[in-house]
């Protein structure tokens, strides 16, 4: 079984990048990783410059000068926009990768040809899951390299041991989050009869956790959800939001990722309270385990006699 699983995984990984959409989304993701590094640096230096201008102005008008809001921020926080791009492009790229890993077989009409090969029942399913995991890790690894290079280039930002540990954990968490959606893409690519629907199921789930759940748990509007700072604003003190977070917290994946990444990149506002009954890390891990199971079951149950989509 391991031989067949490895073969399916390697073959899938080699083939998926020949799909132009996958290559395009991967390039876009890497471009935005670079942009996020620039944005973080730009925002910090601009706020700093504004502070200097404001301080000079306040001095000239004999007003007290408040402390510089960015003075004590961690160098890791300059990567805060990465968390937004992981939850946007990273997740969508993973959905597309997961979907294409199955779709290229179904549309190529090769599913029956694979089905009649002498391999164990789970080999195909496991091969696809391993391919997805490897691809997502590769993508996140590349993003991590770009981020590390950013730190090397900007001398004023230096990390200590704890900082490097947090950075590593941040990329690990991002890989988990992206992998989650990739697994959903894999599951729906195998399960759905129609090609459009098979893309739409994970995209709809993504839209729901990214834009609708934060609205319910914290009254955060969709555009605010895209800003790593605004997305962490405390909700109004209302029992509605308290109970919403209690109930939805365990499945509010975007919220969980947002809190974990803010904590790891050291820009979580002090005193930020999590009201979910389940910790963010547990939420992501549970969701991943569930998605792996779903993907494997969907792939096992895929009709190996035909395979191609209806529309």
């Amino acid at each position, binding site marked *: 079984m391991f031989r067949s699983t490895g073969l399916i995984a390697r073959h899938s990984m080699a083939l998926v990048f020949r799909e132009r959409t996958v290559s395009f989304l991967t390039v876009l993701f890497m471009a935005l990783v670079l942009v996020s590094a620039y944005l973080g640096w730009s925002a910090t230096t601009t706020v700093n410059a504004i502070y200097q201008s404001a301080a000079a102005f306040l001095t000239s008008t004999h007003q007290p000068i408040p402390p510089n809001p960015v003075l004590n921020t961690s160098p890791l926080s300059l990567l805060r926009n990465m968390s937004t791009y992981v939850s946007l492009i990273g997740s969508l790229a993973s959905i597309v990768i997961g979907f294409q890993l199955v779709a290229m077989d179904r549309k190529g009409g090769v599913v029956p040809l694979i089905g009649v090969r002498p391999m164990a029942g789970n080999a195909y399913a496991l091969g696809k899951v391993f391919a997805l995991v490897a691809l997502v890790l590769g993508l996140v690894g590349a993003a991590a390299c770009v981020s590390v290079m950013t730190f090397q280039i900007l001398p004023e930002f230096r990390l200590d041991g704890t900082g490097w540990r947090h950075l590593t954990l941040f990329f690990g968490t991002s890989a988990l989050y992206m992998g989650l959606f990739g697994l959903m893409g894999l599951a729906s690519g195998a399960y759905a009869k129609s090609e459009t629907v098979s893309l739409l199921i994970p995209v709809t789930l993504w839209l729901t956790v990214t834009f609708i759940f934060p*609205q319910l748990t914290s009254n955060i509007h969709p555009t605010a959800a895209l800003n790593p700072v605004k997305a962490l604003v405390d909700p109004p003190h*209302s029992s509605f939001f308290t109970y919403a977070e209690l109930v939805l917290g365990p499945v509010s994946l975007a919220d969980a990722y947002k809190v974990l990444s803010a904590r790891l990149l050291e820009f979580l506002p002090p005193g930020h309270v999590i009201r979910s009954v389940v910790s963010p890390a547990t939420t992501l891990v549970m969701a991943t385990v569930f998605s792996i199971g779903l993907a494997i079951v969907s792939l096992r149950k895929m009709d190996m006699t035909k395979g191609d989509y209806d529309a």
Partner: protein
Amino acid sequence: MLKRSSPIWIIATKDVADAMQDRFIIVVTAFLVAAALTALVTGAVALATDVMTYNDARTTLLALGKSADAIAAPEFYPLRLLRGAVEQTEIIGAVIAILVGYRAAASERGRKTLALIMTRPIQNRQFMVGKALGGLMLLAGGLAIVFVLTAITLQVVSGVGLTLTDLGRIAIIWASSVVYAYSFFLLSFMLAFWLKKLPTALLLSFSIWLLVVLVAPQIGDTLDPDNQVAGGVFKQLHILKTDQIRIMRGYASFETIREGIEAASLTKRFERLSFAVLGIKDTYVGKPLASVLKEKQGDALWLVLVVFVLQALLFSRPIDLNRLTQE
């Protein structure tokens, strides 16, 4: 006016009937309705919480014999509760439009139906116009359902009746959301008709949606220094508005670039128009509709211009039946 016997009308109504039988279009429209109503209800809950907090503070102050003037009362403008609904329309409405456009093209490609249609005595252009009209009708109808239900719910949650002017403002937002969504319809329809592989067209449409709807506004928003500190950098520094303007004059080029990125996004244009008309943005609260529309005509024209350009592109290329009828 189109006659019922016109090929354009026949094709358009066929597409609408097809889509109505497709559970999938109904499901995604229902999803947008749910998202918009969720935003509306949570906004109302948040406002109710503010009101309760104010009332408690006011009662305490009065009990202590102090004036309640020290605290600002929360302002209530019902249309401002539509902010979340508008933002959900920006995001999910565009997704729905992409799907409608994609299906309008995909339903004909690869099947013999396109050959059957084009061997009838109709011109290529009539076919394309008919398809575009069908899409427009679907989007207008779907978004009308969203806005009607939202308006009804707004009256219920706010407890305030909407005036004719309020309804007029909502109607303007509906019309501009139709134009906005139609751009995405045209984009995905065009790509699905031109590109060799249909899935590539769908994914490319989604990628453009990502860049225009999410990334560009996010970059513009993130480059705004005021959004980099919780609560706003100027508020943290206790700088008054007039002084803020003086300080930001020194960052004119930076602001120009930031503004340029935001202004290039169709979504941001739609948002600015909607927020102005609905009084969501502070500076437009209580302003007469005519003066708001005059001030925001640039954003409205931008929406219309994008539609014109996409339509011109769509009709500029002839239909390659030979390629399109192959699987």
